């Protein structure tokens, strides 16, 4: 991996560096440009009383309601396969339509309020769903004869939009693209810190100052990737959790792990003797990396957290990461890790040159 390039020509790079560049260019282009599937942003009114006719105005996202108006269908889903179908749907333009429903005055289940999920199917444009779109309060007079208005329909006969598009998820919306940048940053940081700890182990075995230089270069770049992961995560959090910093356990733990390595850099700068510095770095680095594992991977899983993959939340998967996204996500992980290794090598070489002067 540490092969030195002997020529000055920029085209004589190792193959994996070319791979890193090409992959990252692909990730940036695909990550920014590929559009989202149609979705529903807003439904008005969002509450109603049962037993009445209601007309809801729907605002779509990336939708093209006018293209084939005859193929528009809509449902309100109570739970599972219990649905009512729209009487009539009128598309005003590509982003706006109105759908009229008759809400039966009786419900198969008895609740304080009934959250209904809006499902729209639209020919070539595919399906869009808004969970808990409308809240229904029970009617004062209940007519049991209206029970038959509820259908049993799993809504499986819908259309899938063809082509490469990312899923539209409520709340996430366009920020779903951050998956390609935020998540690989942290993967890359962990890998770089791991490599650094491995070089520290090498230094522990045979006290060669070169291993110390390598391990420090990897820590420096790992810190930068950690900071980038934190910044992208905070921007994402502002858009989805409504605050840059909400003292979520995952946020705290990652901030602490950065603090640990920042402390290591501070410690290095306050030791005069080079050998001493290298030995202390190696010791503290290995100590810190082992303690990082419960910090980042065990404790957040035991606590309630907003972050995916922690207490109460599933990890990446399902509709959050469909096959289209995987085609960009996995290359992004590989690309950013290769980039991290590359930059660390450059940092190591410049440090070495500075040391030799």
């Amino acid at each position, binding site marked *: 991996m540490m092969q030195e390039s002997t020529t000055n020509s920029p085209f004589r790079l190792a193959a994996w560096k070319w791979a890193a560049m090409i992959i990252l260019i692909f990730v940036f282009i695909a990550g920014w440009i590929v559009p989202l599937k149609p979705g529903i942003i807003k439904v008005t009114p969002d509450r109603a009383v049962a037993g009445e006719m209601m007309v809801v105005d729907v605002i779509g996202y990336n939708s093209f309601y006018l293209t084939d108006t005859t193929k528009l269908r809509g449902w309100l889903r109570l739970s599972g396969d219990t649905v009512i179908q729209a009487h009539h749907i009128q598309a005003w333009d590509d982003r706006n339509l109105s759908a009229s429903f008759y809400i039966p005055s009786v419900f198969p289940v008895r609740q304080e309020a009934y959250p209904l999920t809006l499902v729209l199917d639209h020919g070539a444009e595919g399906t869009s769903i808004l969970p808990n779109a409308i809240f229904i309060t029970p009617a004062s007079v209940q007519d049991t004869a209206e029970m038959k208005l509820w259908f049993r329909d799993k809504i499986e006969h819908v259309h899938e939009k063809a082509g490469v598009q990312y899923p539209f998820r409520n709340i996430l919306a366009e920020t779903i693209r951050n998956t390609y940048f935020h998540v690989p940053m942290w993967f890359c940081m962990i890998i770089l810190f791991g490599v650094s700890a491995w070089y520290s182990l090498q230094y522990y075995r045979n006290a060669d100052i070169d291993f110390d230089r390598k391990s420090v270069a990897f820590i420096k770049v790992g810190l930068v990737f950690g900071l980038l992961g934190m910044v992208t995560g905070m921007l994402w959090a502002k858009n989805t959790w409504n605050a840059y910093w909400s003292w979520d356990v995952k946020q705290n733990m990652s901030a602490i792990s950065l*603090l640990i390595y920042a402390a290591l850099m501070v*410690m290095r700068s*306050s030791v005069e003797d080079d050998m001493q510095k290298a030995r202390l770095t190696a*010791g503290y680095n*290995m100590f*810190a990396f082992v*303690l990082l594992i419960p910090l980042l991977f065990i*404790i957040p899983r035991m606590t309630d957290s907003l972050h995916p993959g922690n207490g109460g939340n599933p990890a990446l998967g399902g509709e959050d990461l469909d096959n289209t996204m995987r085609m960009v996500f996995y290359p992004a992980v590989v690309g950013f890790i290769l980039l991290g290794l590359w930059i660390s090598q450059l940092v190591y070489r410049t440090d070495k040159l500075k040391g030799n002067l």
Partner: protein
Amino acid sequence: MNRILNLVATEARIELRERYALSGIVLYVLSSSFIVFSIWKQLPPKEWGLTFWVIFLFCSLMAVLKTFGRESEGRYFYYYTLYHPLELFAAKVIYNFLLLVFIFLVLWFVLFVMAGNPILRIGWFLTTGLMSCIGLSFLLTLITSIAIKTQQNASLTAVMALPLMIPLLINILRLTAYSSGTTPDENPWNELMLLSSIISLVIGLSLWLFPYLWRS
């Protein structure tokens, strides 16, 4: 073993010869609890646990800080020829452990007098305290042995040790919440298992790394 105990006894003798050492710790505990208490006015069970461990952490930092600071360089060289690094480490850890247990008990007493005792499950709290004393004494001794080699060891001990303490602290806080009955959690064994595994990680790593870091 005898040699280790000898070292511990020497440590204790040096400490006790200077009256201000132990009484300084007691005063530190008293004044910091006083400050916290005069800010809070009263301490509900949940805040009691938090206050307890915050004061405990800073007291333990202050107390352990001078572990390696007391003796001169020449003394260490002398020790190095006499004792195996692990013997020295064990002595320091045992001494610090006793110091932390002392702080733990004093702090508990002080907060008990000031703000009452919300701890319902005394056995659990004592176990938590004992385990945290073990874990922190290993961790802090190792970190001070690193920090002593640097220019500004006092601030660096805090900077390096505090983030590393946090995984321990989180589990300790949960166990404290359990022992004061402020959490619906009825199965503290998971927490205890996690705490003990982190502590054994700390112990294993510090036993492995100390001889290496000490050689200079």
